[in-house]
């Protein structure tokens, strides 16, 4: 993580075109829209998968077809899965150097600053374009230490036993309807294994780009941090804006072994035609630490609740989440923590901003089980509304099944204070700048957990969104 968090405002030039550009790229294979057995088999065939994976897909499909939609969260009645193209394979072989990546695709990632960031501050990068990883590389030193960093398809081929042991074990297809959907048509994503005691000095990054209209991106990420290891993983995502609905239904499964530490940071910036129905879950063993840094900025509708299952004694988790709901956005986000062992601890700091009629809904679930003697948890959710027609809700559910636990909770919902805006304006800041500055201050606890480049990116997004919402 960058140590100098000073952000020079003069660097924060607004560039609207940064994410919203479309590329003409050939694809090698693409399924017809919708979801059925033939489509699922075709994807499995394309990937030349082992039997167990094919069966997992078909079982998932069955579950998807028979289950109902979740009865909470965003309205997904507009989401017509029969129109979603589940699999688009770009015409590109997986490369380990950017020179081998087809020109148009490389240009996309250049514009997003990925190769540049890799050179400067990352230990490795995976880049997914539509349904497949097109670039995956890790520094040689990391490889020598035994770190495995692969696209999921290669991992299924090269480490079948390891993958089988962990694939959809934290998030089974029976978890919810869109976990089943994911199980049936998943494609791409990262497999990361960090061996015992290895501390990866720089973050690893995965970037997901959806380029085609009406498609679904369903990448699957597995991180296994073996005993005493440490790793920081950053995930970014974006897409150009289309009329057609896009769907993102990824899954992230993290296994934090005894005494290991994982930090998973996300800046989600899907275009406003995207449904983001994503599932993230970590199983944390004795004395392990799981940190979620979760920024939900984009998408039309989101349901995302990073979860930590603290199953080992002394396991810890910390969630810092920021949700941004702008015009026409409904963001149902939150956090889930299950404390199932003694002396576990959890901190949740969730903040949301709603502006221009956006709706930010915080949904949290903290469960302190019978065995969680001496557990400590604090949950804080804060919502900031920037005008009178934006909405904010918080539903923090806390269940405690032991007498011996120290649980704290606070919630704050409020509008941006006129006095603060006036104070800043009296120092020469325009109204929109004043609001943006207050919002940036509000999300600071989150921003400072990000690498500097991402923090700058976040600020740029906030400026851009506030400027366009105020008009």
């Amino acid at each position, binding site marked *: 993580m960058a140590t100098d968090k*000073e*952000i*020079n*405002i*003069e660097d924060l030039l607004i560039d609207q075109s940064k994410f919203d550009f479309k590329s003409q790229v050939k694809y090698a294979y693409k399924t017809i829209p919708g979801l059925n057995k033939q489509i699922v088999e075709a994807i499995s065939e394309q990937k030349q998968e082992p039997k167990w994976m094919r069966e997992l897909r078909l079982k998932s499909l069955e579950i998807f077809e028979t289950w109902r939609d979740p009865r909470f969260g965003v309205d997904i009645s507009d989401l017509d899965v029969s129109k979603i193209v589940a699999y688009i394979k770009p015409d590109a072989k997986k490369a380990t150097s950017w020179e081998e990546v087809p020109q148009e695709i490389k240009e996309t990632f250049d514009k997003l600053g990925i190769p540049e960031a890799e050179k400067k501050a990352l230990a490795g990068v995976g880049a997914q374009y539509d349904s497949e990883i097109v670039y995956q590389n890790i520094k040689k030193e990391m490889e020598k230490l035994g770190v495995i960093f692969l696209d999921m398809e290669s991992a299924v081929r090269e480490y079948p036993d390891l993958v089988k042991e962990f694939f959809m074990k934290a998030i089974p297809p029976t978890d919810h309807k869109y976990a089943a959907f994911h199980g049936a048509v998943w494609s791409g994503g990262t497999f990361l294994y960090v061996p015992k005691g290895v501390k990866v000095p720089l973050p690893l990054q995965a970037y997901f780009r959806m380029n085609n209209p009406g498609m679904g991106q369903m990448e699957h990420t597995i991180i296994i941090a073996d005993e005493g290891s440490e790793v920081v993983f950053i995930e970014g995502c974006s897409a150009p804006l289309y009329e057609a609905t896009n769907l993102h239904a990824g899954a992230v499964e993290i296994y934090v072994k005894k005494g290991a530490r994982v930090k998973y940071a996300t800046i989600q910036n899907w275009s406003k035609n995207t449904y983001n129905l994503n599932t993230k879950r970590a199983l944390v063993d004795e004395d392990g630490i799981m940190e979620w840094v979760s920024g939900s900025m984009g998408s039309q509708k989101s349901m995302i609740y990073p979860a930590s299952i603290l199953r080992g004694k002394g396991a810890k988790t910390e969630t810092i989440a920021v949700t941004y709901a702008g015009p026409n956005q409904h963001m149902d986000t939150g956090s889930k923590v299950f404390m199932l062992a003694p002396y576990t601890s959890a901190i949740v700091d969730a903040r949301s901003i709603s502006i221009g009629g956006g709706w930010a809904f915080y949904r949290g679930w903290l469960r302190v089980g019978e065995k969680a003697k001496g557990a400590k948890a604090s949950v804080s959710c804060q919502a900031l509304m920037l005008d009178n027609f934006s909405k904010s809700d918080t539903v923090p559910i806390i269940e405690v099944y032991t007498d011996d636990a120290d649980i704290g909770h606070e919630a704050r919902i409020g509008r941006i*204070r*006129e*006095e*603060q805006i*006036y*104070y*800043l*304006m*009296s*120092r*020469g*800041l*325009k*109204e929109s*700048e*004043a609001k943006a*500055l*207050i919002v*940036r*201050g*509000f*999300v*600071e*606890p989150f921003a400072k957990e990000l690498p500097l480049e991402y923090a700058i990116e976040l600020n740029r997004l906030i400026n851009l969104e506030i400027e366009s919402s105020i008009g």
Partner: protein
Amino acid sequence: MTALLEIRDLRAEVVEEGVEILKGVNLTINKGEIHALMGPNGSGKSTLAHVIMGNTKYRVTSGDILFEGQSILNLSTDERARLGLFLSFQTPEEIEGIKMRQFLINSYRNIHPEDQRTLLDLNKLMTELTKKLDLNQDFLERYINTGFSGGEKKKSEILQMGFLKPRLCILDEIDSGLDIDALRIVSESINNFKNDEMGILLITHYQRILNYVVPDYVHVYIDGRIVITGEKELAEKIEKIGYSTIEKELGLKINEE
């Protein structure tokens, strides 16, 4: 010579309740002058400051405010700040998550877009100012006014005055809540930052600060207007006899809220 600030028969009310607070204020401040505005609690001194700064909580119903001969009534608060108006707040707002350093740079660049000095130069300048004001080393790394003591907040305002180089400074009770050492430092800084191009309107209850920042004029402000204007001696007189005696002498009624 055009006055720096000219307030002509200014009347203003609170937008929400429609209650008139300024009831015909006349005041002229020239470059290089220090004006003290004294008056009892609740007389509307702060309201005058905020109306000059363009706070939208208040509505001007008649009269005018001219800055260098031009009416500023139609300008927003930030536009007034960019013209060179500055108000030090009685209770400055706390804004979490944004460091003083970042805030100051941001303001400076807005107010002085023509200044080519580098970030490094401006950073140096800020550090010097914190030393002058006897502020802790970490002052610039703290969030805007957040968790500051009363004294630190006042010093923060004066540091902003020194850094942003305004041309008209309205200092609203900059002396309240300061111990004697802090009062001396704040006053010395005001004197330091003042120059021949700058005008100052010093709003205060007490004569104490005027021993350090010597005014050219003293105005007594009661119930929404200036009732008497004099020189430094007037402040000393008020300290001795109190506002109510002045009111009796002038045959006025004081709002005792």
